[in-house]
């Protein structure tokens, strides 16, 4: 038997429970079967601790089995197992007891991406102070690379916090309320962070992501607060973003529109 055939037969015996006839002269195949399933479900639980709390051990293991059957791991690191769980549960809402749990999965995966996402120097106030007045109109900010903007239909974040902080693993959380809103998830220092956004702040952050200049951000804000108050409103947000490390200092790639990290 070729090596590849030995390995395919063994792999099927572990993942599909197939009998490996004539492959083995000594049989502890059940040890591998059990360890594989336990390891993968534990990896999923590590990425979705609050979804696990919401569902409980048994229902979470059932979800894990369904996910494992349709999305076996192909990544080198088990850290990435579960990357498609949010899409998986959205596709088949019957897997979950409540539609908000799918959004909870989306929220938790985004937090995990913020945890070990790329590092970037936060934009400092000194870089802005050094700008000439004429440079502001064409100024383009950059978001920290861990910034993710989620559009949610349920108030999942407060429920997430309640469950994540609860000492009692059987804590019964409040039911999430229907709420169309945006949440920003990012990393401040080493700490994954999140907060809800007003529609204006969400629009401005999306504008930054789409490369809008400060002048264009002011035009966007003007539609909400009126043109005369728009620059002050945008600057108010910028001040908060600096404190929260939501903006990144970026190299001046095009020579003018970004803020030079050296001056941060």
């Amino acid at each position: 038997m070729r090596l590849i055939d030995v390995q395919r037969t063994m792999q099927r015996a572990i993942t599909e429970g197939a009998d490996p006839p004539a492959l083995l002269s000594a049989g502890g195949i059940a040890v591998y079967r059990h360890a594989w399933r336990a390891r993968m479900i534990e990896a999923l639980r590590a990425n979705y601790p609050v979804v696990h709390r919401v569902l409980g051990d048994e229902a979470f293991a059932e979800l894990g089995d369904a996910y494992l059957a349709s999305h076996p791991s192909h990544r080198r690191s088990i850290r990435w197992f579960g990357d498609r769980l949010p899409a998986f549960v959205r596709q088949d809402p019957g897997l979950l007891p409540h539609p908000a749990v799918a959004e909870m999965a989306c929220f938790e995966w985004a937090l995990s991406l913020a945890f070990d996402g790329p590092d970037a120097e936060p934009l400092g106030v000194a870089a802005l102070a050094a700008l000439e007045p004429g440079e502001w109109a064409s100024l383009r900010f950059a978001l920290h690379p861990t910034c993710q903007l989620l559009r949610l239909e349920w108030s999942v974040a407060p429920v997430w916090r309640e469950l994540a902080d609860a000492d009692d693993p059987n804590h019964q959380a409040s039911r999430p309320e229907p709420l169309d809103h945006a949440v920003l998830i990012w990393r401040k220092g080493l700490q994954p962070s999140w907060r809800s956004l007003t529609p204006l702040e969400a629009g401005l952050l999306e504008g930054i992501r789409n490369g809008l200049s400060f002048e264009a951000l002011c035009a966007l804000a003007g539609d909400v607060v009126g043109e005369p108050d728009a620059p002050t409103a945008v600057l108010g947000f910028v001040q908060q973003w600096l404190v929260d490390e939501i903006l990144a200092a970026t190299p001046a790639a095009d020579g003018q529109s970004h803020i030079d990290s050296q001056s941060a």
Partner: protein
Amino acid sequence: MTPDISGFGLGLRTDHYADFAATADLPVDWLEVISENFLVPGGKPLHFLERIRADYPMVMHGVSLSIGSADVLDVDYLGQLKSLVDRIEPAWISDHLCWTGVDHANLHDLLPLPYTEAALRHLEPRIAQVQDLIKRPLVLENVSSYVAYAADEMSEWAFIAELIRRSGCRLLLDVNNVYVSARNHGFDPRCFIDAMPAEAVVQIHLAGHEDHGDLVIDTHDHPIRDEVFDLYAYTIGRIGLRPTMIERDDRIPPLSELLAELARVRAVATAADDATRAAACA
């Protein structure tokens, strides 16, 4: 330049990041890090890795090379591994003599190879490919196993010794794995130890296991058992002192407990080495 490593180490686990980051002179001579835990873009894992690396020598230990798989080696993974090597300059880089999946699946387990001439011929160029990339010998670890293949043509120890001879790889000798496999397959673990080329052994792993009588499982969630300490002492008597560490992967105790266990490892190794030297002089 990479530092030479000697003495007694621990696997670096997240529970102990703060301890190692806060204290530069804990009684641990070096640390082993799981390579895959740090193949991430940034954030806390890499922050603590670099902070702790400033104070402690390190070796890198991977779980996903899948050197024995029938699939081609994952060059993207190898590239990431090389970047991490350049970043932390470990004394050496190890992984397991096993396969973790085929047809691009990863079972995230360390599956045994059939001990055949064909497997040896499969491994040799793959080890050469990795060694060319990392510019140093690859260190491979014997795994624990719960099955044996009908196709086996030789013992595990003959297979490993021959692989070392052909490929120039080095050995991370996991004494607990030798014990676990010996119990599961009914061989004398000392035959395994006796067959290892002493000069190729660069590191030793010790760990705890679960003993179910007719089945012994390598769990890494208990302290090292006395019978493994005995086999470790036998090993040191045969091959001399080697950098040795405790692998604890689950039910991680406070660092003070692992340091106490490491002190016992140190004492057992020193006593075994002293006894060998005394016998040689007598």
